[in-house]
């Protein structure tokens, strides 16, 4: 519900400039890797937010769409040599279709029931891909090492192109989210979130708008999936369709502030570095301390700052006015 004030635009542009300059200043691989992951998860969070934070459908199954995107483009690349950029769009469309197919029967599910249904759906997809010989089942798909180029969507010598591509994807997602949020559609989403029944009585076609939310969300998540495949060059159901990935997406969106455009971005910016850094510093002893800290933080944030960081910032921002 943020209207764009000159202050916001300035801050936003400043941050953008900083992000663009970042890889020129920081050339080490690990920080770049963290930033790429931050962008990717932020995009997934923004995608989730469209259906969860705005339309009130708390999905814990986003990994399914992420995975479908990754698998569609990779399968097309390996089997039919389809260019990954076309595969990207194809993946998004397939994910959106699947989303509609599953979204329709689930369109009158509320709150907890919807959440569990999303988990059930994602698990079914994962088990299916794990056994589907067409996509190599559990063995996964290894992407071939093509020549490095933008057209091939593959780079070997440096992470920097990946950095900019993911940043661009994130910006696309944010723009989509912003338009959804400030448009009539977004208004209807929020009405549905507040109360299904009231929205219906007021003449909102609840089913149609719910489907739209899910489809947009799925498309964006699938884009991130294709990126992941082109980045890591190997996908299998265990790594792209895992419940833990879905949960992570919800957690960072909530942490950052669900129902606000920038919320998931902040959530990703905080949680992902923490997860990566604590793993590097503490993980190698095998004691799980890094995840302990992670779990602790999540619990604390839920209790003391449920509106997320964005909620906190806006309260401060309001006070400053």
């Amino acid at each position: 519900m943020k209207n764009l004030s000159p202050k916001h635009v300035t801050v936003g542009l400043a941050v953008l400039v900083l992000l663009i300059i970042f890889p020129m200043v920081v050339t080490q691989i690990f920080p770049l890797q963290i930033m790429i992951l931050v962008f990717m998860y932020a995009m997934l969070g923004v995608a989730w937010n469209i259906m969860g934070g705005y339309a009130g459908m708390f999905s814990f199954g986003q990994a399914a769409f992420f995975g479908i995107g990754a698998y569609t483009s990779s399968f097309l690349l390996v089997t039919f040599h389809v260019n990954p950029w076309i595969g990207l769009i194809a993946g998004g469309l397939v994910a959106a279709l699947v989303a509609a197919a599953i979204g329709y029967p689930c369109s009158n599910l509320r709150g907890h029931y919807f959440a569990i249904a999303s988990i059930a759906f994602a698990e079914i997809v994962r088990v299916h891909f794990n056994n589907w010989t067409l996509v190599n089942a559990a063995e996964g798909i290894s992407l071939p090492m093509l020549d490095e180029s933008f057209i091939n969507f593959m780079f070997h010598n440096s992470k920097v192109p990946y950095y900019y591509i993911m940043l661009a994807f994130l910006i696309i997602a944010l723009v989509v989210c912003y338009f959804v949020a400030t448009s009539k559609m977004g208004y209807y989403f929020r009405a549905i979130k507040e109360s299904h029944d009231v929205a219906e009585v007021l003449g909102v076609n609840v089913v149609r708008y719910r489907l739209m939310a899910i489809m947009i969300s799925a498309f964006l998540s699938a884009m991130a999936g294709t990126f992941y495949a082109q980045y890591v060059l190997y996908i299998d159901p265990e790594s792209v369709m895992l419940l833990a990935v879905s949960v992570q997406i919800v957690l960072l969106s909530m942490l950052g502030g669900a129902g606000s455009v920038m919320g998931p971005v902040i959530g990703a910016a905080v949680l992902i570095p923490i997860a990566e850094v604590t793993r590097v510093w503490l993980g190698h002893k095998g004691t799980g301390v890094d995840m302990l800290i992670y779990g602790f933080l999540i619990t604390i944030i839920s209790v003391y700052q449920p509106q997320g960081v964005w909620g906190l910032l806006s309260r401060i921002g309001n006070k400053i006015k």
Partner: protein
Amino acid sequence: MLARNEIMPEQLLQQIVNGLLIGFMYSLIAIGLTLIWGVMNIVNFAHGEFLMIGMFASFWLFTVYGLDPLFSIPICFLLLFLMGVFIYRFIVSKVMKGPMLAQLVVTFGISIFLSNLAVYLWTPDFRLIPPTILQGTWDFGEINLSIPKTVASLGSVVTSVCLFLFLRKSKTGKAILATEMDREAALLMGINTERINSLSFGIGAALVGVAGAFLSTYYYIYPQVGGLFGLIAFSIVALGGFGSIEGAFIAGVLVGLAQTLGGFFFDPAYKYAIVFMIYLITIWIRPQGLLGW
């Protein structure tokens, strides 16, 4: 897949029996979850981890004090009850007034914390309690009943019935049911709903702690053991209808049967997909679950 006519009736019966055995275990796990859900509208995503703690409690009581798992059940009940009340008082109660998302997420945080605490304290290794008083199988012709499993399942049924009676017959139990049905009305009737919340969370945890103690008599124990059990429990509770104890019980048995028979007749690799599929289909037809309101 082999042809139907190649299956002997004893094999079918064996599978049904096993489905029931695992089903009763599931029921007990699910009942605790649905109680919490019904009373305070919180999906306890840490439920699987409570199960894990129950299993470890039983393991350590055995290893350190030589206590047979069957005898440590009351201790597990108490331990998990206290833990549940503690977690409610100091963490969950504070999100009760917050947004739904915070309520969903806080138990996830607790779950991550607990499973990694277990890794930290007890290492990720797998433990098994060696067969003690209960071991071996009863053979009825072609049907084999694992004694530990059977005792665990019967124990689950007994515990479930005890809970059912407690809720229906005791004053506190009725207060819990009342709060579950209509919070406002219960408040008006002078019921201290905060205390009921606390109590219910504790009992819910205690129940799954007992399930863990039963399960530890034949299943391996490790920090992430709660994962799949927890996942299945959510499906069972939603299938049965949130808040309905009877629903959770029946759904637990149904899921146990579906898993076993589905795996036997169809493909074990899809076992759990079948369980989730059944949940989805039931929910589509009857959004409030089998016995939910």
